[in-house]
């Protein structure tokens, strides 16, 4: 029950990934006003970068399209992209949130015609592909971007080329002078749904991710397998562009490890099973070795795990590899001890995929709002901030369904704070 009458009935959702979108839509479809803040130029978050979901092997963009349609049709939802929270003041029912907007350099009336990108020559790393490919400095984040609007990379600003790009826009939608700005929102409740970042694989130094091109991470594997990725969906070895014939999937790369992430990220086992499925769909002869500590395939996902391990070309090796060496031909060599057979192995591969875990984005970025977290950086409930809630992976390592479940619950908690 509300302690006092809330002064604002608007709910703010921080983060526009699957959890934030879900909280916002559940709130809006119940008839309350909601504002989404998203740091990136488009909604969709991590799931937009995934190729497919386990265990159905369906495309995340399918559900995103439905969610974007729901947003488009719903007058209760307002979206601010390239926006983060700079400060929060006030209390449950009455918060003033200072929002910081970084410049997109493209005004809202962009039609997404793409003329700017056609004249842009400067190339920058494509963050959507985790840097696996380049893109022009005037770009659409991806073909399902929401809002469907272009972005000018800050690297272009101040260059001579920037003027050409600006001139190419028939609709005068490019504003090279745009500056960072702040504005205030008055809201009654806040749901923090800032999701996760992949654990930095360069920090697992024995795995030589920084030195071996053919050692990639699980999130990069998603981009390689995606039709809209840098290889148009063909899984190819980054070093030579060839088909991989022998692939290692290394579980718990940095997870369940006190030197890195002490917790289990829950999703990596199944994600690797899915990667085995991608490989087997593409290459009849490919052999896949999965190095693991425990395979964590909860509830009905057990069936998905069984299907993969029953494949004669998939081999399970119980071992946390000690290191990945550089082979004579520059290939990755996975070394360690099989804890079941006590066999000391050193196996060469064409491609090694590190199943890196999820790290809460909240704790990865300088925190200006001082929410209560556990030792890992996941947000925990705080009696002093009882109008602020967390949803999805901001609150703990969850898969997509569990994140949506968490986000739906957070929607109700937020509504309770504004009625």
């Amino acid at each position: 029950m509300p302690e006092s009458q809330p002064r604002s009935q608007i709910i703010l959702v921080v983060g526009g990934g699957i959890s934030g979108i879900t909280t916002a839509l559940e709130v809006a479809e119940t008839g309350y006003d909601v504002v989404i803040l998203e740091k990136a130029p488009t909604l969709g978050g991590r799931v937009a970068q995934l190729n497919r979901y386990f265990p159905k092997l369906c495309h995340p963009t399918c559900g995103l399209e439905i969610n974007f349609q729901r947003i488009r049709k719903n007058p209760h939802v307002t979206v601010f992209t390239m926006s983060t929270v700079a400060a929060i003041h006030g209390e449950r029912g009455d918060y003033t949130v200072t929002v910081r907007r970084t410049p997109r350099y493209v005004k809202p009336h962009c039609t997404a015609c793409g003329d700017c990108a056609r004249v842009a020559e400067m190339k920058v790393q494509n963050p959507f592909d985790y840097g696996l490919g380049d893109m022009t400095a005037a770009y659409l984040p991806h073909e399902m971007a929401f809002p469907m609007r272009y972005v000018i990379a800050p690297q272009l600003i101040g260059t001579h080329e920037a003027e050409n790009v600006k001139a190419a826009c028939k609709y005068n939608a490019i504003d090279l002078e745009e500056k960072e700005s702040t504005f205030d929102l008055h809201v009654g409740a806040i749901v923090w749904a800032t999701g996760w970042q992949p654990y930095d694989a360069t920090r697992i130094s024995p795995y030589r991710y920084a030195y071996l091109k053919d050692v990639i991470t699980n999130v990069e594997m998603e981009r390689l397998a995606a039709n809209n990725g840098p290889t148009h969906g063909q899984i190819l070895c980054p070093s030579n562009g060839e088909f991989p014939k022998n692939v290692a999937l290394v579980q718990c790369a940095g997870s369940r490890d006190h030197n890195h992430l002490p917790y289990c990220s829950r999703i990596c086992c199944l994600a690797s099973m899915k990667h085995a499925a991608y490989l087997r769909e593409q290459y009849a002869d490919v052999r896949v070795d999965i190095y693991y500590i425990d395979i964590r395939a909860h509830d009905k996902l057990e069936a998905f795990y069984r299907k993969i391990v029953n494949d004669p070309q998939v081999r399970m090796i119980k071992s946390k590899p000690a290191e990945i060496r550089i082979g004579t031909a520059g290939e990755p060599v996975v070394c360690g001890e099989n804890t079941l057979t006590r066999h000391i192995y050193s196996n060469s591969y064409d491609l090694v995929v590190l199943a890196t875990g999820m790290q809460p984005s909240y704790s990865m970025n300088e925190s200006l709002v001082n929410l209560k977290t556990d030792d890992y950086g996941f947000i925990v409930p705080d009696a002093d901030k009882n109008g602020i809630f967390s949803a999805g992976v901001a609150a703990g390592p969850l898969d997509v369904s569990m994140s949506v479940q968490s986000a739906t619950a957070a929607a109700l908690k937020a509504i309770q704070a504004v009625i």
Partner: protein
Amino acid sequence: MSTRNTGVYLCSGCGIGNAVSMDGLKNVVESEFKKSCKIHEYLCGDEGLDLIRSDIVEGMNQIVIAACSPRAMADRFRFNSVQVIRANLREQVVWSHPEKTEDTQMMAEDNLRMAVTEAGKSTAPEPQFDGEHSEVIMVVGGGHSGLTAAYESARTGYDVLLVERALQLGGMARKWSKRMPIHPPYQNPQPNTVANLIEAVKNHPRITVKMGSTVAKTSGMPGKFSVDFSDGSSHTVGAVVLATGWRPYDAGRLKHLGYGVSPDVVTNVELEGMLAEGRIARSSDGNVPEVVVFIQCAGSRDSDHLPYCSSVCCGVSIKQALQLREAHPDVMIYIIYEELRTPGVAEEFYRTCQRAGVIFMKGKVQKISSSLEITVNDAFLQEEIPLQGVEMIVLAIGMVPNSTNVEIESQFLDEEKLKLLSSDVNHYAPIKVAGAATEPITLSADPLPKGESILNLQYRQGPHLPMLAHGFPDSHYICFPYETRRSGIYVAGPVRRPMDMGESAEDATGAAMKAIQAIRTAARGFALHPRAGDLSIPRINLNPCTKCRRCTVECPFGAIDETEQGFPSVNVTRCRRCGTCMGACPVRTISFTNYTIDMLGSMIKAVHIPDEMEEKPRILALVCENDAYPALDMVGIARLSFSAYVRIIPVRCLGSVNLLLVSDALSAGYDGVMFMGCKSGDDYQCHFMKGSGIAQERLSKVGETLKSMALESERVTMAEVSIADSATLPKVIQNFVEVLESVGPNPFKGF
């Protein structure tokens, strides 16, 4: 409604004006349709929008916008109380076809003709209110999940009717001595607070608890469910949360693990009882056991018992081992496991248990003697290890969903209905493998759950909630775990999926959210997910109705009942507006105000069909608006190209496509018809569950129609298209064009 006053606006921006003749398009509108038509070079800009707004002020009440895809600029092209119809000239015409060619121009003109025709046949729906709506939420099951759903609903201001079969609240959770940690540092068992929750529920003024009762019958729909109870009473409620929880797997079936053979073999649930009483003792001699062995996956992950993982048992054994260790520091504790599953932050709980000196053995139990000697096939040592001196064995048994009432034998033996239910049971489809090197691996189906339905739904589709797998009535969708095929009824807690108390509290809160949303949505006349906000409802003209029952049978949501006379009767708030009924009706008598067979048929006929001599085939593509249509947009966004012979009509779902449209199209001279919809089958991706599958089934029977028209069967095809298929879609279309070219032109052309 007031007189239709339609204005057509053409945008020449984003390359449209360079690629096609705007005057040619304008001429189509003015000469063929006699409508007002204006061209603007930047229609979504402020000036363009002002142009439209000023005409609205002048009395325009329906707008056709021929510009970008309806997926773009929806927020700009939204005008109060004016119906907007969109023609896609940008993504699906000029961005995906060569500039200034005859074919591109013809395609643009036809898209415009279809949109203006649509406008003439479409009326914006208005909200329908029919009487009182109940805002009461019925929660079935008074365990931890049900209590949470009730409490959270009440806290949000809704009245709750909580129904519990037993004579006390708390369910399984009441028996727990402690619970697994949900707060940092996640190391130690935490107090079980379910007693507080029970008190809070009992004392809440908005919650009525109905103890010792079960549901006898549920009929009605969101906002007005009518529920009869075992005690003869009945209530009207607005939405339902089913939280009937779980029961332990029958340990009597685990004789091979010593249960029932030795009294000192107990289940985790039985040990929990001892922990709650504070007295751990062997049944055989009353002594505290000195050596206790936990056996994980007892009857779980086992094709002879429960094929799935119950998710919680590893954590439960760790909790119980820690509690045992605390009570009796000298007791020797082993946990024998195959995979230790402590996902997320529960990893810390596992480490705490290791630090406490509990011995974890990875292996499989081979046999257990009557004196409790356990032979373990130790995975690490790769040999059989005998464990002697064991004084108590705890079987970590799994969770069975209470999705049916097993105490009552099912009366549900009608074969037709049984088939309907079994078609709802889904198993994940085999993994595809490249080449033919390996047989796809499939898993055997599990049997249907036994017992009577808990809600006993009075639906055409049978009394049960559809099951996903293993008797869990879970959602099939990864993105939408609360999606339900019985609108307004949400499943929460371990009956939906095995889960612990922390997760079930969250799940129950989420289900309460959905129940509240269903009530508010019903009261406003809106559709539920995925067409949230849609006001259109199916109207059935009963005069031509032949009582064939196809609409009632095919509705994926069981929204249509049959009256005593055998006529269909729509339960409006159950309906999700997919139009599968409209697709099913052989006499075209089901329609929405803004979506009718006549409208689609007229759009089909609005296209100009070149005569045979022109050698320009025409293909009608009926395309799912949720996946295939966006994929076609993305063909344009990527500036790829597809055949300009195709004419695209987006549909709510392929399930809404009536086969009569196919004969309409072929009679009109189209050379072929292509359905593009989502994947059907076990791993279906159709947003209306069965729509694309039903379309496929209907199409399998189109051969006779074609035969009666003396046409080749190749002229009609269906493609399963996912939203990520834009790169391959042009090829799929081209292949069909080539098939049609080899078949030759439709002889009906020009008639």
